[in-house]
């Protein structure tokens, strides 16, 4: 059987709601509906509530630490400013490094936080600490942002897995991000934006046979889980369900369905292809997509590294913002670009910059985030924050608010242990929110 025959190639809007779902939408379980598909059929209040439920996130993680001075917070012609100029953006008065010419033209969709001051200058601890929002230590391992959103918001009406991860190297189901949450809140990773291995059915198995097989598997699973239901059995079943869902959306991994124009706009390098995949996953209805890029840790020859690396971010990131805006999705999709820290203002004797959590920047835009705005500032040399500082906990509060996660859900229940979803000593950055 050919893959064409097996693939229904359904579109998000084709399964965005059913009569039963529609009727149920007025109750508590409204998460299974797509607001966009409802048009004017619903009570506006219900439609609005549904719309909130469809909020999504693209989280671009530049692992190792992008230099704030060569990106979001340039200090040209100063002691630590490096060789580059600052260029104007689409927002009068806001400048970024000349290494971000295309993103500069999308600045009206973005905000920059320039007064981040975080607590860890090592990768080994810093990556996890930032990704978990640096909560207070309560003897548990907190989830990464993607797992937290998957738990707090669940999947969208698409039924696709809520937390997908597009990354270089290997894929698979990565449970580590889930922390103390059940393993099923981990990330489904697509190595190099490719489909999981063996996603396609063996040619000798028909769709009908496969459905029967799945039914039998579920029976076995349920029998096995009786009386011993735990996270492992849950996660095991979940992964099968996810695989089944993905089999219905094999088109997402079919590169022939992407135009050459889009491939060129995003760039055919890894980060370009991965950000384009992120857009497609978001369009398909994935709740949270993380895109990783590695090797930004430019301790040596920083400026040539930046000239090689930053354009690979700039081009697809600008295209992503442009596309989300053109599709009317930016109101519902929160876009974040960040690392675990910035880089030292001091240029070491190997022409590199080291790790710098003292004063660095994050860029974000879309859902709930004010557009064309800069929060905070560093001093004239870019060495330290001038004025109020924000930590990652403030950003987690801000993002959860931007996603309209209700206040009543801002607490996990870890087997009876109440845990705040974000560091309770921090609060949302109000000036960042719309």
């Amino acid at each position, binding site marked *: 059987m050919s893959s064409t025959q097996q693939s229904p190639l359904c579109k998000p809007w084709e399964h965005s709601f059913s009569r039963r779902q529609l009727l149920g939408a007025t109750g508590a379980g409204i998460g299974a509906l797509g607001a966009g598909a409802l048009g004017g059929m619903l009570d506006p209040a219900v439609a609005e509530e549904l719309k909130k439920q469809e909020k999504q996130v693209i989280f671009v993680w530049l692992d190792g630490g992008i230099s704030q001075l060569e990106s979001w917070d340039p200090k040209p012609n100063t002691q630590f400013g490096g060789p580059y100029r600052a260029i104007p953006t689409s927002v009068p008065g806001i400048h970024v490094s000349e290494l971000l010419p295309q993103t500069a033209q999308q600045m009206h969709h973005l905000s920059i936080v320039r007064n981040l001051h975080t607590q860890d200058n090592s990768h080994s601890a810093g990556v996890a600490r930032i990704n978990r929002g640096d909560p207070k230590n309560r003897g548990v391992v907190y989830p990464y942002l993607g797992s937290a959103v998957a738990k707090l918001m669940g999947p969208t009406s698409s039924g696709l897995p809520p937390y997908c991860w597009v990354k270089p190297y290997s894929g698979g189901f990565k449970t580590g991000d889930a922390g103390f949450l059940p393993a099923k809140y981990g990330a489904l990773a697509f190595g190099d934006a490719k489909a999981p291995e063996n996603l396609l059915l063996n040619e000798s198995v028909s769709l009908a046979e496969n459905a029967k097989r799945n039914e039998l598997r579920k029976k076995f699973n349920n029998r096995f889980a009786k009386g011993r239901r735990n996270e492992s059995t849950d996660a095991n079943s979940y992964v099968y369900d996810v695989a089944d869902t993905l089999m219905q959306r094999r088109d997402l991994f079919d590169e022939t369905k992407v135009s050459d124009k889009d491939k060129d706009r995003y760039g055919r390098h890894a980060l370009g292809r991965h950000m384009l995949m992120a857009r497609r996953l978001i369009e398909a209805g994935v709740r949270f997509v993380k895109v990783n890029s590695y090797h930004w840790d430019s301790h040596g020859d920083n400026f040539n590294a930046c000239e090689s690396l930053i354009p690979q971010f700039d081009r697809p990131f600008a295209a992503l913002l442009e596309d989300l805006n053109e599709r009317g999705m930016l109101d519902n999709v929160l876009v974040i670009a960040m690392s675990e820290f910035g880089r030292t203002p*001091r240029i*070491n004797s190997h022409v590199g910059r080291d790790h710098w959590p003292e004063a660095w920047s994050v860029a974000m835009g879309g859902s709930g985030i004010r557009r064309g705005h800069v929060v905070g500032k560093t001093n004239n040399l870019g060495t330290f924050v001038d004025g109020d500082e924000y930590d990652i906990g403030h950003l987690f509060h801000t993002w959860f608010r931007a996603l309209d996660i209700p206040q009543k859900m801002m607490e996990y229940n870890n087997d009876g242990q109440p845990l705040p979803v974000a560091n309770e000593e921090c609060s949302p950055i109000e000036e960042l929110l719309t």
Partner: protein
Amino acid sequence: MTPEELLKRYELAPSKDDELIEYERQLWQARYSPCGRFLIGCGYDATIQRWDISGEKPQLMPELTGHNGWVQAIGFQPQKNRLLSADSWGQLACWSYAEQATKPVWSLPEAHPNWIRAIAISPNGELVATGGNSNSVRIWSTEDGKLQREIPHPDRIFSLCFHPKGNALVVGDLKGIIRQWDTSTEAGSQSGDDAKEVRQFDAAILFNDEAETKGRIQQCGGIRHLQFDAGGKRLVCTGQKQPGGGFATGTPCAIVYDWESGKQIREMPMGGAQDGFSYDAQFHPDGFVMATSTAFPGKGHVWFWRPEDEKAFFTSSKLPNGFSLSLHPNGNNVAHLTSKSPNGNGRALKDGEYVGGSARIRLLHFPIEVDA
């Protein structure tokens, strides 16, 4: 001379008696002027620093200002005691470096649209070639800064050098390719259409596309310096052998080519695979290459290596973190520039202050003086 005889004559040993010139910012190059009276430095603070070294102690002269970003490229035009300099914002300027005056003879604020990384002066002093991130070589009149011609180039340019005789210009790029261009111009021709690429020299070991070799995303390395010997029979280039991203560690390396045949004569790696770059090398009139390298604090060497020999006859790890070295026209002194800037993550304050890097130029003497 035998290697032993060369060592006896040219061994450099830093001592407490060496003249040290300290500068509060990091410098990229320190060069003796062709007249031997001045030492000129340029670097990270957009200025050009000058020291008059004709007296007992180096005397700092008024700095030359007007550049932006970094000044990484300087070159001398000996016929009129002029200095050409270029910066990372695309400006090219011409100075009378021996004068106290600090205004440029001329300057072109937008000579290139972005970073100019390399300058070369033609043997007759009439032309200055510039190249960098704009993927083109532009050739200007040193007299008035008028553009003579432009030669497009496929990659970022890191280094340039005119052959001491004739019209050949060699261009070193990110990808480890040295291209030889014929710069002889037809009357009135300013375009690059008639530029002739004569041949290429392969220095691919000084480049690494990690997307292909390691599944990473950085292109590393590049030909950081090019220099002919005085007779134009040999060409040396420098960089890092098998360069890497991140910490940018690799083996500093110089490579010498025979000009006539285009063949590589000697690869001269120095130090370990965890060192850094060689940004500078030059030929000594006695035929050996003088090179320096930098890496993380305390690493890097100065080495002298005759291309005919399998090994360097002089190596010193007591002169680490070298960014440039310059042989004085008298043949007896070497100015060795180092960066003094600590590595380290996080705050690392000194007496409550966040301190930046600085530069030190050590004026070294060969053990046996010769007549210039």
